[in-house]
Every structure is written in C-alpha cells, then in structure tokens.
C-alpha cells in the first residue's frame, strides 16, 4: 500500500479505525495464517512459472514439463490469460503424447496443470507458420513471438 494511502487511513476517525480492526480480526479468523501462507506459496509458484515461460518465449527456448501425466517438449508461442480467466500457454508440441492422441502440433496448455516445468538449452529458430500473436483463446496476451 502506498504511504499516502496509509497516511489517509491514519487520519480516519478512531471509531472508524476500530471498526476496521474488527474487520481485520474477522478476516484473520476466516483466513487463518496457514491458508494465507498456502495462497502465498501458490502465488510464488505461479510467478516463477510465468517468469520461466515468458523468458522462454523471449529467448525462443524449448520447454519441458509434465502435463496430464505425460512428459511434453514444446516450443512456446504465446502466453496469456484465457477467456475463462486463467493462465494458458499456446505452444507447439514437439514430443510427447496427449489425451487426444495427437503427438505434435499447436496446443493450448492450462498452466495450473503443468508440473516440473524447465527451460532447456535447446533453441528454436522462429514461430510456427500457424502462430497467431492475437490468440483468440486469450483475452490478454502477456508474451508472444513475432510472426514468422
């Protein structure tokens, strides 16, 4: 919170501030420390995953991860927020099986389902011909490759 906002809170009437402390106490009861800690850990994980994906797109590095119980090797094309509101990655799958049975091709991955994500040392030259920087599955694009 910005210092000006904190100073504005400090200037509120004592009765109003006591009501806010009461709200804080109720919130602390509703969201105990352990729950807050777990939420913080989840946020830290999401930020780390996002950072790995964005840097892989920027540097055109191949990514590996587990998804639906299968190892995947992909060339990341676009990362963003899906129309449903969660982080997703559009990537070209080089290796690995999928639930649909198709091995290769452009796929949309739900970031929350990824595990053991790592950036490899392998690079790919450019985006795939079917790459669309304005991916229609995303309402917000956070990183994308230039058109090939």
């Amino acid at each position, binding site marked *: 919170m910005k210092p000006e906002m904190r100073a504005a809170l400090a200037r509120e009437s004592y009765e109003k*501030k006591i009501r806010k*402390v009461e709200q804080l106490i109720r919130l602390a009861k509703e969201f105990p420390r352990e729950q807050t800690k777990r939420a913080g850990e989840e946020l830290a994980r999401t930020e780390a995953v996002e950072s790995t994906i964005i840097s892989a797109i920027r540097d055109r590095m191949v990514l590996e991860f587990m998804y639906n119980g299968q190892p995947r090797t992909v060339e990341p094309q676009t990362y963003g927020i899906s129309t449903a509101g969660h982080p997703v990655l559009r990537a070209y799958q080089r290796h690995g099986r999928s639930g649909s049975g198709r091995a290769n091709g452009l796929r949309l991955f739900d970031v929350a389902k990824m595990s053991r994500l790592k950036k490899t040392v392998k690079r790919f030259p450019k985006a795939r011909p079917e790459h669309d920087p304005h991916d229609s599955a995303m309402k917000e694009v956070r990183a994308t490759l230039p058109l090939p």
Partner: protein
Amino acid sequence: MSDDSPTIPLADVLRAANDLVSTGVIKDYALGGALAAIHYVEPFTTYGADIFLIPIVQDLSGGISRIYDALRAKGLGVEGEHLLLGNFPVQFLPAHGLTEEAVREAKPLDYKGVPAKIFRPEHIIAIASSVGRHKDLARIEQLMAQTKVDQNLLEAILKRHKLSLSS
C-alpha cells in the same frame, strides 16, 4: 457473538475502567498498547486492550487482585492474566515510572460518548523504545511517519527515562 456485534467492545472496556475510578478502586487510568497506537496510525490487527492504571493500594502487585475482584464482580470473565469482555481480552496493568507518567499526561478521549484517557504518541514511542521488540520498532516507525509527534516532548521523555530511539 454474531458477525455484526463488535469484536472490540472498547466503549465497555472504558466504562469498566471509569467505574474502577468512580468506586475508588484505582486513582487513574489510560488506554495504552496497540489500541492507543491505532488512535494515531493506520489500523492493524490486535487481539486485546491494555489499560494502564494507577492503583490506590500501593503494594507489590499494585492492588491488582482487588481490581480483578472488582471487575469479576461486574461479570467480567478471566482467562489467564486477561479479563474478558465478551470474547475480547483486556489487561489491567499497574503503571510504574514511564507508564505512570504516560497515564498522568494522557490525552482526553471521547469514544462513543464514553470519556476516557489515551496515551500520547510521544509516550507510546518511548514505551516502545524501552521494550524494543521488532513490533515495537515497527510501531515507532509508523508513529513517526503517520502522526504529528512533538519532538521536544519526545526528547524530554526519552532523556528523563534514559532511553534512546537507536537503542
């Protein structure tokens, strides 16, 4: 306690303290601790009220057992060293030295129509510096940043009680 009932029955706490004064159990009191600090800074979570009092009976415990008896007679519960108003813990602490000065020089407060006294920010800072835990140092920073502190008064208090903000 319903969700709408006050979690902090501060007006009741102050009324109980006023009763102790009017019935001659204590000479004087003032609200100290976190709830006093919140008067001057942004709200933060706290789970109890600290009432510093000047007792009439000056024994080693500051006549605290007589005070607790009087409060229990008014229906307040006891949990460890805290009295409970509703579910809210309240500590009645005999004031000595710096805290006694803080009570004597406390500012008047009107809380929901209940007259009371509350520690000045300069005394809260001095007390925090004498305790020196991490949260006390954070409280000093907050007070310095968010309220008008009388620097001359603060320096005089610190000097009088041989304290320093860097210690």
